[in-house]
């Protein structure tokens, strides 16, 4: 068995930084997706939120990773608004609670963090797979990550497959008719467009892959 790499608070901080730079770079694209089937604010919402998260985590370099995730979640709830603020905010808080005060975490714990995040999004938003939401990207990613880690993959490699699963889930939202959120108001007119929340979720998974790869 190879030595399992240790993930820690620094991994969480670099995850949030990676998300921030990636949603900032994709801001206009996310907003354009949200203009087609929503209200054109998703890019601005997540950019504002993760910029605040990076700032909030700046002075917290020595905090345990679970605490950092909870702080990141709280910051999202307090700065984003919209649907994505409470959804991703609660997700990160629930994920953080899984880790408690442990100074490090391993691949299996990472699976539990993301599974708790997914459970919390589904509980708050009551969306099922196929409703054309962020769940359509996150659920396949969590399933993939769980399977790969159980099969003995290192976290970074498992995350590469998980992020690819999120991207496939994101692309699979195009032909779906939205049943949750603003896009559902459009009825059949929501068909043929990619869900903005699923798109930012795929970016969040890719960011995690980069952060974890860099900590090894």
């Amino acid at each position, binding site marked *: 068995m190879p030595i399992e790499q240790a993930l820690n608070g620094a991994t969480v901080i670099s995850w949030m930084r990676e998300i921030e730079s990636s949603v900032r770079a994709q801001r206009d694209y996310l907003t354009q997706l949200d203009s087609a089937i929503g209200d054109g604010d998703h890019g601005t*919402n997540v950019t504002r939120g993760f910029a605040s998260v990076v700032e909030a985590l700046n002075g917290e370099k020595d905090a345990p990773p679970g605490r950092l995730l909870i702080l990141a979640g709280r910051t999202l709830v307090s700065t984003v*608004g919209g649907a994505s603020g409470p959804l991703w905010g609660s997700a990160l808080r629930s994920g953080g609670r899984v880790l408690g005060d442990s100074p490090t975490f391993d691949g299996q714990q990472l699976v539990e963090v993301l599974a708790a995040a997914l459970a919390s999004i589904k509980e708050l938003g009551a969306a099922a797979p196929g409703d054309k939401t962020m769940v359509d990207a996150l659920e396949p990613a969590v399933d993939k990550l769980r399977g790969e880690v159980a099969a003995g993959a290192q976290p970074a490699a498992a995350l590469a497959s998980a992020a690819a699963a999120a991207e496939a889930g994101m692309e699979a939202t195009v032909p779906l008719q939205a049943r949750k959120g603003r896009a559902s*108001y459009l009825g059949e007119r929501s068909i043929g467009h990619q869900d903005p929340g699923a798109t930012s979720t795929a970016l969040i998974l890719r960011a995690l892959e980069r952060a974890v790869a860099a900590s090894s």
Partner: protein
Amino acid sequence: MAETKMRKFMNDPANVVKESLAGLAAAHPNLLRYDSAAQIVVRKDAPKQGKVALISGGGSGHEPLHGGFVGLGMLDAACPGEVFTSPVPDQMLAATKAVDGGAGVVHIVKNYTGDVMNFKMAAEDAADDGIKVSAIVIDDDVAVQDSLYTAGRRGVGATVLAEKIAGAAAESGADLTTVSDTVKRVNERARSFGVALSSCIPPAAGKPIFDLPEGEIELGIGIHGEPGRRRAQLGSAAEVVDVMVEAVMSDLKPSRGSQVLAFVNGMGGTPLIELYLLYAEVDRKLRAAGVEPVRNLIGDYITSLEMAGASLTVLHLDDDLLRLWDAPVHTPGLRWGA
């Protein structure tokens, strides 16, 4: 696709909401104050001991809703989010604390996923602080089917009527249950339908949300510049009002001889001359449908930035609602009898 240039009065797109609220407060210091740290608008004399307080909130861009309805006989506080984005729970919690006079606080929430979630989180925090909160969701838009396949009907025009009518109930000393039941009753007895002749330009996006070719109309729009349920050829005002009245009345089904309030609302970019023209059609068609529009409200009250368009809300009145509607109100956006 013809690019529409953004022509807006602003200093910095990021500061539009804050700078506009500063203007609201500067214009109406006798009615309200703007707490820029908490990002809330609060009635000047709040908290009023023993009075049930009403707060509402939602994305900005719908002015005068909600900040313009803070004052006597209407809201005690408003929580404005970014343009078209739900505010955050911190704002609602701060507003709830700022207005609680010990008799409880009613949250008037428009039915949008973001608004409902953020208000829910705030109500949980307020309960932890020992404040009684009753949250009522407004969902009067008949353009959206209330089914498993949607997020449910949107909250639109009935929000203005609920804020006025329940605000009057609270002002007259009604308790928390009565005030929240009043909000519920307005919501149950009101239906709305909106149409658009243009999209609108959120300042941060700088571009219209959709492009509507000349000669076409979006039917069944909400208040966020979004496309409607379907697009059609623009007919005469009489034809458009036929669609609106039919959509609203077939769902509301008031009994013949009922008294109603007819609310013709401008979306921000349609002049009063057209709104009154629409009202002439509405008045005639409601009478022909066997109901009597004994009260009306015509103008821009719940808008979608500079969108050209209008919505119709019909509220089935009863004696109690009529009395509360007529009660004095003094806010930046609505004033009579005081």
